[in-house]
């Protein structure tokens, strides 16, 4: 084995060379973070720091929430070589149902949310049946679903028009912030605490992962490089926490987004279910012959997509404090774009949920930055389209280089 730990000599020059080679090998993964960094830096300069202000970053992340949760589900759908175009209007429709239950039927919020989430799962499973059991191409099946939900959304909202939601607890999901307890130098204390907790968790997991790798004599980065990485990422988390704590602190939307990412990250990387999903994506025939129930996996992935569509609908309705006739328009394409920018492969079997979240944030940053600069909406679409194309070109090129 040629996998001996390097890291005996640790002068800065070595770390630089190592950094360069690490970057070369992991260019696809790091590329995304670098792109995000460059985008944020550029906008900060162009807007005299307005972009990185507490208020803007908070708003940006809140506005990403309902797309980000869709992007997480979409990642898995694309990983198993399918697509779901129905999620946008499914989210819009389910959000409208939530508004009706709350405002017109008078169902309390703690019943409404589980009902909507379960409805979402049912919707997703229905798509799963079409795709897995009837063998309809997912593009067509979900295109049909998209039309049906669009109609359904119009149907439930056309009599009343926009449905206002007055429930404070529900609306807090889209607009509210976690309590502060008390202010520390004008900073939100609980949010700071949360940031510290995240950093501690991050460091703990990274260190124990590295310890395991060393135990099995796997290749690891040098301890110098490792320290640099830990400090770098921790500093970023700390900085973002600091920015957010300077405004209203973490919003419930961001907390929900973080929870979804953490759960899905765990599911996809550490569980049998996750392995099965990636196995089905990389070779469905081989997966079937390995005793994996491909149909069941397809149901689960579409079911989870439905669940997250419902969540997205809830977040969006709460954010607007109302259900509108056009809610959910183009959400699905934003989610698909976020997943591709985040490194999902259309060939299946490749893609991380963390990547898709970064992809969603990249796209949201572009919108937010250009809005601050007063770029016209026509140019905004073109620029975002260009970024999507560049991301995929970059992906294809780096993959080709590797093989």
């Amino acid at each position: 084995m040629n996998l001996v730990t390097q890291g005996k000599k640790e002068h800065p020059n070595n770390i630089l060379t190592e950094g360069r080679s690490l970057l070369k090998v992991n260019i696809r993964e790091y590329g995304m973070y670098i792109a995000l960094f460059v985008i944020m830096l550029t906008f900060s300069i162009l807007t005299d720091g307005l972009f990185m202000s507490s208020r803007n970053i908070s708003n940006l992340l809140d506005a990403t929430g309902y797309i980000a949760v869709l992007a997480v589900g979409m990642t898995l759908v694309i990983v198993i070589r399918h697509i779901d175009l129905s999620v946008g209007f499914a989210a819009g429709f389910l959000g409208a149902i939530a508004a009706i239950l709350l405002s017109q039927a008078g169902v309390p919020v703690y019943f409404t949310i589980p009902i909507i989430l379960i409805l979402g799962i049912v919707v997703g499973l229905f798509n799963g049946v079409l795709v897995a059991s009837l063998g309809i191409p997912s593009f067509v099946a979900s295109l049909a679903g998209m039309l049906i939900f669009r109609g359904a959304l119009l149907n439930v909202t056309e009599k009343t028009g926009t449905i206002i939601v007055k429930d404070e607890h529900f609306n807090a999901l889209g607009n509210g912030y976690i309590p502060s307890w008390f202010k520390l130098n004008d900073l939100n204390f609980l949010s700071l605490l949360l940031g510290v907790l995240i950093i501690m968790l991050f460091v703990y997991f990274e260190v124990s992962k590295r310890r395991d790798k060393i135990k099995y004599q796997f290749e690891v980065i040098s301890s110098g490089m490792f320290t640099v990485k830990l400090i770098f990422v921790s500093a970023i988390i700390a900085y973002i926490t600091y920015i957010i704590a300077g405004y209203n602190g973490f919003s419930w939307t961001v907390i929900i987004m973080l929870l979804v990412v953490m759960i899905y990250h765990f599911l996809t990387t550490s569980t049998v279910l996750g392995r099965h999903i990636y196995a089905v994506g990389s070779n469905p025939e081989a997966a079937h012959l390995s005793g994996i129930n491909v149909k069941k996996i397809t149901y689960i992935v579409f079911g989870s997509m439905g669940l997250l569509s419902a969540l997205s609908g809830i977040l969006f309705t709460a954010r607007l404090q109302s259900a509108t006739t056009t809610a959910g328009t183009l959400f699905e394409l934003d989610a698909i774009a976020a997943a591709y920018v985040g490194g999902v492969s259309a060939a299946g079997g490749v893609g991380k949920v963390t990547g898709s979240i970064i992809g969603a944030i990249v796209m949201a940053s572009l919108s937010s930055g250009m809005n601050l600069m007063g770029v016209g909406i026509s140019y905004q679409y073109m620029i975002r389209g260009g970024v999507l194309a560049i991301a995929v070109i970059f992906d294809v090129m780096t993959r080709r280089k590797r093989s």
Partner: protein
Amino acid sequence: MSNYILEMNNISKEFTGVKALTDVNFKVEKGEIHCLIGENGAGKSTLMKVLSGVYPYGTYKGDIVFEDDIQAFHKISDSVKAGIAIIYQELALFPDLTVYENIFAGNEIKRGSVVDWNKTIAEAKKMLQRVGLDVNPEVLIKDLGVGKQQLVEIAKALSKHVKLLILDEPTAALNENDSENLLNLLRELKKQGITCIMISHKLKEVISIADKATVLRDGRTICTLDGAKGEITENTIIRNMVGREIEDIYPKRANKSFGSKILEIKNWTAYDPELGRHVVKDVNLHVKKGEIVGIAGLMGSGRTELARSIFGNPKSYKLQGELLVNGSPQSFKHPKDAIKEGIAYVTEDRKGDGLFLIQDIKSNISAANLKGISQNGVINDNKEIRVASDYKSSLNVKAPSIEQIVGNLSGGNQQKVSIGKWLYVGPQLLILDEPTRGIDVGAKFEIYTIMNKLIADGMSIIMISSELGEILGMSDRIYVMAEGAIKGELPIEEANQENIMQFATQ
């Protein structure tokens, strides 16, 4: 003018840090059939890719002299223009287009800027005649068997006025009949003055057809053997390929003792609703503990279908008959049911439906038994690493680490990973479908040794194979299949090539 149509002088080719070819010299005389032999990874395919312009001029060192001129092929079409055509193992035909459209694909006969279909069909007929293929040119490619598809490929090459025809393992997917036809065609083309380079793993073919044979090993030319001087023999080829003598390529087992019946099937019939016909007909078969049962037969005789109908019926055939595992009747609805009863199936097409090529060795080995490395559905990474490392070393998988992507391994090592995946399931019966197809002699020997070791550990094996040598060398008992039915059962003592072929062609 020299006698050589092709001279490749001092060819070297490097892939980031890895030397694939080092100073290779390869000379082919006009009008000969020249075989190129070597273990997998010896550099045969790379050499042919250099020749055909897949690796463009300038990315390799050395000279290609074709018809006395130094050539600089920048792309594949340059070499095609010069008269070089290459036919790959995986055929490059369009299954949903007709035979004539395929023959002239990319080389359309035009009148003005419009395709002249009448002339195309007429020309296609001529080409088909030349290759001795009697089919209507308007038939779709997907409706032809592999053997006939191969002939269409050759017809396509002929339509481009090929002078040098290169065939990469042309008979790997063919049965003995089709193989013989193909070899005869090559002899016929030789008479017409077409030079041919053939890459092959089947030594018998090489011996029967080659005028010359060049052996590559580790990216270097080892020797060129001359058939006219009687130099092309199994011994010389194998010795030069592996650099050592393999006394017996089929390792012997010491003490054979068979126990009770592990698997038995009675009056077993499978109907494929997609094809609309029976693929397995009234099969009776059993396997005892500690036995290697060989299933011989030609391609398409229903062997793979039989194996799949036993292994949880993944293609949803309609089944009839009885399936007993250790004497108790079973009906498997899904491969996972069969796995639960201790049956494992290593598929014949390891790239197509055996392995997860984009994943690493570790995930491939654990794929069929994630329960073994997890607790409450959560994977224990450390245990997985331990398991994968164990199999990697016990099966001698040659790779830098268990985090190596399986798609980057050689055929033999991929096969070992594939077997490792199934061994980790802990089966009592292992079904091996063409276990040594497309892998080199050294790796074959290793696979046979692994099989013997498994038997010694108390496992049973069903081995499906098209190679008679392997069937005769490894089996304890042989079933011969043809047209979905078992035509004969032979104890190893009574079996020989002749009686197996007799049953197989019934």
